[in-house]
C-alpha cells in the first residue's frame, strides 16, 4: 500500500533519516517503525503521511507519488487516504466528539455522514458521548476518539505515533488491539512508530531505525 524508495532526510547538517533500500507494504499488513527516541521515527511517519517532504527519495501511496502532487492535492489525498493518530491526539477542544469526527469528513472534502460517525462511536463504546467535549473524556476515551477520527474516512493507511507510551501492559495491549482491528475493518495498512519493546510481536514487518548520523563535513 505504500512504497518508500531511498528515502532520506536532512535537518540542517544533521542526517536524521537514511533508508537505503526499497520498502514496500501491502494492504492488511502491520508495520512497526522501531528505534530509540530521536532515531527519526516521527520524521519518517510525517514523511509517509505527506506532511514532510523528504530531502531525497520518493513515497508512493496507492501507486501515487505523493510528493509529485501539489500541496493542496496532497492535503486532500492525505485527508481521504491516510488516517493519523498522534501521540497527543490533538482533538479539537472547542468541538464535541461528534463534531471532531465530522471535521475529518469536512476537511477531507467528503460528505459528512452522521450515521456512520454515530455507528463508529457505538462500536468504540462511546455511544452517548457524542456531545461531550474532549476535556470531559478520560484519557482512554480520548484515545478511542482519536482512533475513530483517523479511520472515519476509511483510509488505506493508518498511522499511529507512540500509541502505547506511558500505558501499562493491559492498556497498551487494548490500544494495540483496537488499532489492529480498526485497520483491518477498513482494510488499511497499519504503521506504528514506537520505541516500545512490548509490542514488537504484534507486527509482521519492521523498519528498524538507528541513532542519527552526523553528516561528514
Amino acid at each position, binding site marked *: 500500500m505504500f512504497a518508500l524508495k531511498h528515502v532520506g532526510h536532512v535537518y540542517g547538517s544533521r542526517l536524521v533519516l537514511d533508508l537505503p533500500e526499497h520498502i514496500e507494504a501491502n494492504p492488511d499488513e502491520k508495520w512497526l517503525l522501531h528505534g530509540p527516541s530521536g532515531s527519526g521515527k516521527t520524521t519518517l511517519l510525517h514523511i509517509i503521511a505527506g*506532511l514532510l517532504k523528504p530531502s531525497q527519495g520518493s513515497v508512493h501511496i496507492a501507486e501515487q507519488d505523493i510528493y509529485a502532487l501539489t500541496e493542496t492535492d496532497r492535503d486532500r489525498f492525505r*485527508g481521504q487516504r491516510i488516517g493519523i493518530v498522534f501521540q497527543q491526539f*490533538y482533538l479539537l477542544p472547542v468541538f464535541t466528539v461528534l463534531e471532531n469526527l465530522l471535521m*475529518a469528513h469536512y476537511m477531507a472534502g467528503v460528505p459528512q455522514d452522521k450515521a456512520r460517525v454515530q455507528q463508529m462511536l457505538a462500536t468504540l463504546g462511546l455511544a452517548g458521548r457524542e456531545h461531550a467535549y474532549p476535556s470531559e473524556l478520560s484519557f482512554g476515551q480520548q484515545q478511542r476518539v482519536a482512533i475513530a*477520527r483517523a479511520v472515519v474516512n476509511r483510509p488505506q493507511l493508518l498511522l499511529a505515533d507512540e500509541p502505547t507510551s506511558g500505558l501499562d501492559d493491559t492498556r497498551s495491549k487494548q490500544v494495540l488491539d483496537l488499532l489492529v482491528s480498526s485497520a483491518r475493518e477498513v482494510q488499511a495498512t497499519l504503521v506504528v512508530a514506537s520505541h516500545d519493546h512490548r509490542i514488537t510481536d504484534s507486527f509482521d514487518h519492521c523498519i528498524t531505525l538507528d541513532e542519527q548520523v552526523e553528516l561528514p563535513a
Partner: protein
Amino acid sequence: MNLFKISLAYIYRRKLNTLLNMVLLGLGTGIVVVLLLFGKQFEENLYRNVQDIDVVVGAKGSPLQLILSSVFHVDVPTGNIPLLEARKLAKNRAVARAIPLALGDNYRGYRIVGTTSEYAKHYRAELVDGTFWDAPYQVVIGAQVASVTGLAIGDEVISSHGLTAETASDKHESQPFRVVGVLQPTGSIIDRLLLTSVETVWLVHEPHAEEGDEQDRHLESHADEDRARDVLGLPMDSEADAEREVTSLLIRYRSPIAAVSFPRYVNKETKFQAASPAFETTRLFALLGVGLEVVRVFGGVLVFAAALSIFVALYNAMKDRRYDLAMMRALGASRGKLFVQVLLEGVLLTLMGTGLGFVLGHASTEVIGAWVREAQHINLTGWIILPDEFWLIGLALVLGSVSALIPALQVYRTDVAQTLVEVS
C-alpha cells in the same frame, strides 16, 4: 461542519475577548452612525426650511442674522424696511412671489409672525382645524405650538413684546389674540410659529393702537370688505402706508438668472440687503461641521482601536490554536482553507461589532431625538437607514479582513510537521 460554524465556535470560545472587541467596535461605529443620522437629518431640517426661498430681503446687517431671524426664527431681526419700498421690490421683474413677514412679538417663547396665508401655503401647512384669519387679532397656530401650549380654537392669546419669553418686556394685555385655526405638523419651522395678519402686527405696535383710535377701528371695520390689496397681499391705505414697515420679504425668483442680478441690485442700489438662505445655511453648516468633525475623528479612533484589538486577539488566538490548525491540515485541509477560515473569523468579529454599533447608534439617536424633539427645531429619529450606512458595513468588512490578514497569513505559512514535533 463548515467554515462558518468553525469560526463561530472559536469566537464563542473567547467570550470575554469577543465582548471587548464588540464593545470597542460597537462604540466606534455607533458614534459614526449617530453622526450620520444626526448630521443628515439636521441638514434636511435646515434645508426643508429654506426650500423654495431664493432670497430674503431685509434691513442691512449680517446676512446670516437676516436668515436666522426671518427663516429659522432663532435670531433678532436686523431691522425693518418701509412698506412702500417693499412693494417696489416685490414688483421687480425678477420676483415671482414675495411673502412679507412682520416680526416683533412672542407667545411663551413661540414667535408671532405677521404674514399672509401664502406663508402657510409655502410650507404646505394645511389647516387641521378652523380657518385662516379674516380680521386682525386672529391667529393660526403651528402644530407644535398647539401640542405644547394646549391652545385650541377660540382660546385667547396674550402676546409679549420681544422675540423670546426671556427678553419679552411688556405684555399686550389689552389686545388679546384669538386662535382661529390650527395647522398640521410639517416638520418645518412653521410648526413652532403663531401666524397672524401683518395688519395685526401693525395695530399692536402703532403708537395709538392701545387706545383703540380711529385708525384702528378704520382697519377693523374694513376687515370683511374686499379692500384693495397690494402686490404683497397687504391692504392699501394711502394715508398710513408711508409710516408702515415690514421686517423682511421671502422672495422666489421668476427665473434662475435673477440669482445673480437681483441680489446685486438690492445690495448696491437700495438701503436693504438680499441674503441667500441656501448659501447662509451652508455657511452655518460648515461652521458646525468643525465640531462634528472632531466627534467623527473620535469615532474613527475608536474604530481603529477596535481593529487593532481584533488583530491582537486573532494573533494570540492563532498561537494558542497552532496544534488545532496543524491537526486540521493533517485531516486534509489546505493552507487556503485555513487562511479563509481565519479571515472569516475576523470578518465575523467585525460584523458582530458593527451590528452592535448599528443598534447602539440608531437606538441612541432615537433616544436623543425623543428628547430634543420637544425642545429644539429638529425632528430627529433613529428609525431610518441611510445609504451611507451601507458604506459603513463595507468599510467594516474591509477592516475585519485587514486585521485578520496577518494572523491568516501566519497560519498560511505554518509548517505542519514542524508544529507537530514542537511538543513531541
